[in-house]
């Protein structure tokens, strides 16, 4: 494959979906309904293919609202939801889903959980039935819980055998420290041992509730019939008497100075780096300018990072810069890897590029190219039903409006060199950032000392 850099990172995927806009293509306006229990529902009929996709967003059911001692709890809950209800066993649920060729799963971000479904339209009634039963009546069975805990602990070991993936998690931890945004969905070896069914039930009760949930369904259905079905299933989910929890997080950490962390993976023949600095919140007006700057810095194949590290020098197969945005802030980051012996060279070049962004900035034709690229690549990002349902629930959660993508795109069309330079200067770091390396310490230690003092850890140490 020519390149996998732009599809490897989940962080990047989320960013690109949330912020692309334009190309003459618009996110269609869906119908909106609010159920008596408070659930917000968006529906869009699309009869081109006999399929349906839905996304249900549950605010607060993400990792940042876990108690740190139970890190990994929110992701475990999305798993447990599908492991039995009051009327169906886990095996019955998987039999039904697999037989239909349908998918139903939960996953978590920092701020929310997403419960997602896909099926042939002929199976929609059944899928909605299972989804509603799983959300409203989970059995949270002790034996299912006891089975899963050791698997989750073992899975952490398998992640540590994939150094590129592990580097991202070590970075998140190093960056956020004790801040709740540092909670990892994969948890840690100790947190899982502290959990119990009661802890799961308490957390579920607090964050799984219809009055804050946002549902979007796109595909081949008849709205009238579907609304009736939804009212009889998810519409029956009882709204709790207690008020919805406040979803407030402490301000994101300020990064002052440089912090270096190195993880020793003695069998690694490459060293993987991730570095990051404070970014901006979702909905920030700087997005159009920064999107252009990021595209040019490390967001596409001919970016500065890719040109200098891969194309000119053959130091790596992937480079990437990206950004993540949340309600109260964001992070900008860059990542790549190379043979252990070349890591200092790779970092020197990356730091030089950051200086170039501050001292020289971009040239006009680059900015024009980035604008064209973003516009031209936008329409395919909304082709899938799943892209649309995800857009609806996320835009709704962040209160951005369904014309947001097109607003951003219109702004991108007008981004000037000065604006792109300014955005780069404001966010691409020179002196204040976190840098995490995963590599063979014995080999890289003499090479990286010149950058500063590294906190040293071992890959086999518990947690990230």
């Amino acid at each position: 494959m020519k390149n996998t850099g732009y599809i490897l990172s989940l962080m990047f995927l989320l960013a690109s979906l949330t912020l692309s806009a334009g190309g003459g293509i618009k996110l269609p306006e869906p119908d909106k309904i609010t159920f008596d229990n408070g659930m917000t529902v968006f529906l869009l009929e699309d009869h081109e293919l006999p399929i349906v996709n839905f996304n249900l967003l549950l605010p607060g059911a993400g990792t940042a609202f876990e108690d740190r001692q139970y890190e990994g709890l929110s992701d475990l809950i999305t798993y447990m939801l599908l492991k039995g209800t009051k009327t169906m066993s886990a095996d019955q649920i998987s039999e039904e889903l697999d037989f239909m060729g349908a998918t139903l799963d939960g996953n978590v971000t920092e701020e929310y959980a997403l419960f997602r479904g896909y099926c042939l339209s002929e199976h929609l009634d059944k899928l909605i039935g299972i989804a509603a039963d799983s959300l409203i009546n989970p059995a949270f069975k002790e034996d299912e819980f006891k089975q899963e805990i050791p698997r989750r602990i073992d899975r952490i070991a398998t992640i540590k055998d994939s150094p590129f993936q592990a580097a991202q998690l070590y970075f998140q931890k190093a960056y956020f420290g004790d801040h709740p945004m540092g909670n990892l969905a994969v948890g840690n070896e100790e947190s899982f041992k502290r959990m119990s069914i009661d802890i799961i039930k308490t957390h579920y009760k607090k964050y799984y509730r219809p009055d804050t949930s946002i549902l979007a369904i796109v595909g081949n259905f008849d709205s009238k019939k579907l609304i009736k079905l939804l009212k009889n299933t998810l519409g029956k989910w009882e709204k709790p008497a207690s008020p919805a929890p406040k979803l407030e997080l402490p301000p994101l950490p300020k990064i002052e100075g440089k912090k270096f962390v190195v993880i020793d993976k003695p069998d690694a023949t490459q060293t993987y780096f991730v570095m990051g600095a404070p970014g901006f919140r979702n909905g920030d007006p700087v997005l159009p300018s920064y999107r252009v700057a990021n595209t040019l810095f490390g967001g596409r194949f001919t970016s500065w990072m890719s040109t200098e590290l891969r194309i000119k020098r053959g130091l790596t197969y992937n480079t990437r810069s990206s950004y993540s945005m949340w309600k109260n802030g964001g992070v900008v980051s860059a990542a790549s890897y190379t043979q252990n012996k070349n890591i200092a060279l790779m970092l020197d070049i990356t730091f030089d590029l950051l200086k170039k962004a501050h001292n020289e900035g971009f040239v006009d034709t680059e900015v024009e190219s980035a604008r064209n690229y973003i516009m031209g690549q936008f329409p395919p990002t909304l082709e899938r039903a799943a892209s649309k349902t995800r857009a609806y629930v996320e835009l709704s959660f962040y209160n951005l409006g369904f014309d947001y993508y097109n607003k951003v795109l219109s702004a991108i069309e007008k981004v000037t060199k000065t604006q792109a330079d300014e955005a780069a200067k404001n966010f691409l770091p020179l002196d204040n950032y976190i840098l995490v390396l995963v590599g063979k310490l014995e080999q890289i230690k003499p090479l990286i000392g010149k950058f500063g003092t590294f906190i040293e850890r071992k890959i086999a140490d518990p947690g990230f």
Partner: protein
Amino acid sequence: MKGKSLLSVLLLFSIGFFLRADLKKEDIKVFKLDNGLKILLLEDHDIPNIAYYTFFRVGSRNERNGITGVSHFIEHMMFNGTEKVGPGELDRKMEFLGGANNAYTSKEMTAYTDWFPTPVLEEIVKIEADRMQGATFDPQVLESERNVIAEERRVSTDNNNDSLLDEQVVASAITAHPYHWDVIGWMSDILNWKRDDIMNYYNTYYAPNNAVLVVVGDFNTEEMMKLVREYYSPIKPGTPPPPVTTTEPEQLGAKRVEIRKEAQAPSFLMVYHAPKFADPDYFSMSILETVLLGGESSRLYKRLVRGEQLALEVGGGMDQNIDPYLFYFRIQPGVDSDLDKIEKVITEELEKVKKEGITDKELQKAVNNVKSNFYNTLQTIAGKANLIGNAELLAGDYSAMFTLVDSYQKVTAKMVQDAANKYFTDKNKTVGKLIPEGGAK
């Protein structure tokens, strides 16, 4: 890039089966230039974009010792300059035009994939026609790209335990056929390819008569063909490439591979020789893939993950291959799981299929999954382009995809049972284990 995913395997089969109003054979317009280039066009005006896919009938199965991985290397070099376009210019130009591209190489084919807004179509046709035979392989760029490939191998194989085990197990199971090595190639070959060997290989396989162009999206077929004729017609056809004649000798007994290295968790892979794509048995075996490994209700997930709790994940199955390849059982064991027990459970489940067959419900489940995956792919112009191209290259003729339905529907529980008895034999298997040792743990 590794072999194709299970998803695309299933998709191909389903096409004829489930095509209704969505995509008919007649919607795909077929053309052939005098130089042998075949063109498959599908208009789709949902978005103002085009997916432009060029497939060459060359992959690692066409390589030999000394130049393993060269198909994939050429895939990279196709972005690094022609007589008309300097190194790196293709990407700069395409991105400036609002386009993006990528490419992949498999055992069977090499595909170049462009996605761009309709107004820049002619520029893209020019670029693609130019590099079909015009790549220059600049010696300096070649050395730099060699390092990129070495890094790709380090990240995807050498520092990835599952891939490392995969490479060793396959090399042990397949001894004579070029499927013996992985698409990425052996590191010593990557570091030693000679420019002349690469050029010879390129000149042999990169010709219009060895390529298929598939375009899906917002264009007018007549206008498209005008452009295609203008830019591709001058390209001269090549001598037809030599056929791959090596066949894999019959395996005469179970083989075992063991890797011991520093790791946090073990890996497990078990393979059996399996039928090629064109073999009627392929259909029966592909159904077994769903029965044994598809989802949490599959027989092996139930036993290994939920029942005995020996594994975290199960996966595998077959690719669509031109020559006979392998059926995979790829298991992620728990950290302290007994790998011999995993092998025993798989063997027991296979014996059960061999003895008792599968249920009608399991047959239907496989069909439903094919259908569901198929429509999932049809949502995008890129998905359609890839599907049409793969059908054309792997089934021999794209229109064969519309008759596959008959073969698929003819599969009975008895046929599946017979296939299991034929292929899942002890003599036919290779078992691989990666056992963590030493180091930090």
